[in-house]
């Protein structure tokens, strides 16, 4: 195959991975921005999302749209509960709450391992067929993932702009004390923010389940990438998370096509550590006082 034929494919793959990273990173960033918590269990919610999709859609043949709704409801509740039971009591201590999310991650991953076993399960595509765009041919399932992810990101953006809760979250992320003064009930916002944050991870997992396979370990890579993306885009910055996600997705896709996956991975880590050193607040993040 010649280079010109590879380019659109690499671009499309980049968009697919980028959309997933963006979803992961937005959720991660939302939690950090509002609560100042690094959620090391973020990847496990991706894993849970892909398992829900697997059982609901592939096993019990529930329609995919309904599957997504189930994912949102179940993971949202679980996230709010986790905030309430595990994180809330530890919020005054940054390191302790971070370690607690680590504990949650260990519990969730190994529970999945115990119940579902380690072997990866393939899942059928939600839509099939090919899409012809000019000379290039794309698989419809990839296009579907991109469109669905864009819809979710759009819905999230609308929620943050228009709804009272969303606006309150943005106020808290900007300045917690000022938000308190404006009468925002910060304590009530936190479970929402955490719930929505992990829901975004779970939706990413559900959308990607047919693309990759489903196993207890699928959350690790997306979480690592979410870290990289938010560092790149700035911890707590939502537009930064979207742009960073797409950027990393593209770098990865083109890097893997032309350089080999491992080199691309190492390159990413090196670039991100470099950025952290030069601009700790990230490319688009605001400086912390």
């Amino acid at each position, binding site marked *: 195959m010649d280079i010109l034929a590879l380019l659109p494919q690499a671009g499309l793959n980049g968009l697919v991975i980028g959309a997933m990273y963006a979803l992961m990173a937005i959720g991660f960033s939302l939690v950090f921005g509002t609560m100042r918590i*690094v959620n090391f269990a973020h990847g496990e919610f991706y894993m849970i999302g892909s398992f829900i999709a697997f059982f609901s859609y592939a096993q019990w043949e529930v329609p995919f749209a309904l599957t997504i709704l189930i994912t949102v409801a179940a993971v949202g509740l679980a996230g709010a509960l986790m905030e309430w039971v595990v994180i809330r009591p530890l919020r005054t201590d*940054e390191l302790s709450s971070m370690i607690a999310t*680590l504990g949650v991650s260990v519990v969730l991953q*190994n529970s999945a391992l115990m119940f579902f076993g380690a072997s990866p399960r393939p899942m059928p595509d939600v839509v099939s067929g090919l899409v012809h765009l000019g000379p290039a041919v794309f698989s419809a399932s990839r296009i579907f993932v991109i469109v669905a992810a864009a819809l979710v990101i759009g819905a999230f953006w609308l929620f943050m702009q228009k709804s009272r809760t969303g606006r309150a979250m943005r106020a808290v992320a900007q300045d917690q004390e000022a938000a308190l003064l404006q009468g925002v009930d910060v304590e009530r916002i936190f479970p929402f923010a955490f719930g929505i944050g992990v829901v975004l991870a779970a939706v990413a997992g559900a959308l990607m389940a047919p693309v990759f396979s489903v196993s207890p370990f699928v959350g690790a890579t997306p979480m690592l990438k979410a870290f990289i993306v938010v560092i790149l885009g700035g911890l707590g910055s939502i537009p930064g998370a979207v742009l960073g996600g797409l950027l990393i997705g593209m770098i990865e896709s083109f890097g893997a096509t032309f350089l080999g996956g*491992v080199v691309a991975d190492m390159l990413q*880590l090196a670039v991100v550590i470099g950025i952290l050193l030069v601009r700790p607040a990230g490319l688009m993040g605001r400086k912390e006082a």
Partner: protein
Amino acid sequence: MIAKTGLTVRLGLVVAASIVAAFVPDLLPNLFYVHIANLTLLSGIFALSLWIIYSVGQLSFGHAAFAGLGAYMSALLAMRLEVPPAIALIIAALATAGMAALLGAVILRLRGVYFVLVTFLFGQMFTLLVLNWADLTNGANGLISIPAIVIAGVSFGPRPMFFYLVFGVFLAVLLFTWGLKRSTFGRAFDSIHQNIDLAESCGIDTARYQVIAFAIGSGIAGLGGAMMAHYIRFVSPDTFTFHNSVAFITMLVVGGRSLFWGAMIGAAVITPLPELLRDFEGLQHIIYGAILILVLRLLPGGLVSLPSVLRRQGGGQ
């Protein structure tokens, strides 16, 4: 008070502990228990070294990577350049400390979350590097038949012999940490931990001390990793992963972060746990995580704070 815990008392404790230790391999029912004791002492070295980093208010999420760095360097020195293992592990420890100092010097401006993220990413990079630099590291297969440590013709390969060696090293690390805590450095470290801005205003070069603590802690982790490599005789990318870093943090938290010997207790409690929970395959890690969360929630000071918590509750009734 200073005189009481001074040099003589410490020497006395060392002698007493050594006498007890001398009989341990003979008293344990079989070699498997000696193996567990060895692993526990190695964990103790890792947890104590992590505590040194924690004592300046930083938490390393890549501690296992530094242990792995030491392990690979020492193993490669011994295998490729035929450096005697006893010397190789010292070189490896110093080189690991040097690496940490370099990394620390660049990341010293980062605090809290950012420091955690960089150490986490460093750990990931280490695993990737080891996996992919196959010419040197033999990739995912790892290095096999790493030579045992031999000092003056005595091999410390057999489990009971290694016990004496690792006990000696553990004791040395423990005494060093104890001394460090009481030293001028320890005072600077604790000042930084409690109030970094005020520490700087006291004339304490906080960045320098944080790098020093990071280098010392990581260097000791490198030493522990190197010892482990020459003991297990095998090292692979799976030997030192993020999960090991999490295990070290768990030891620190469960034992108690405020006191250095909390790390020791944590290592003693957590290391044998998988063996005790062998019958509950799969459940052991869940219990690990659950213990971590429960201790954070119910006993934030860790096991070392248990006596004072119990006393307070007893007094309240």
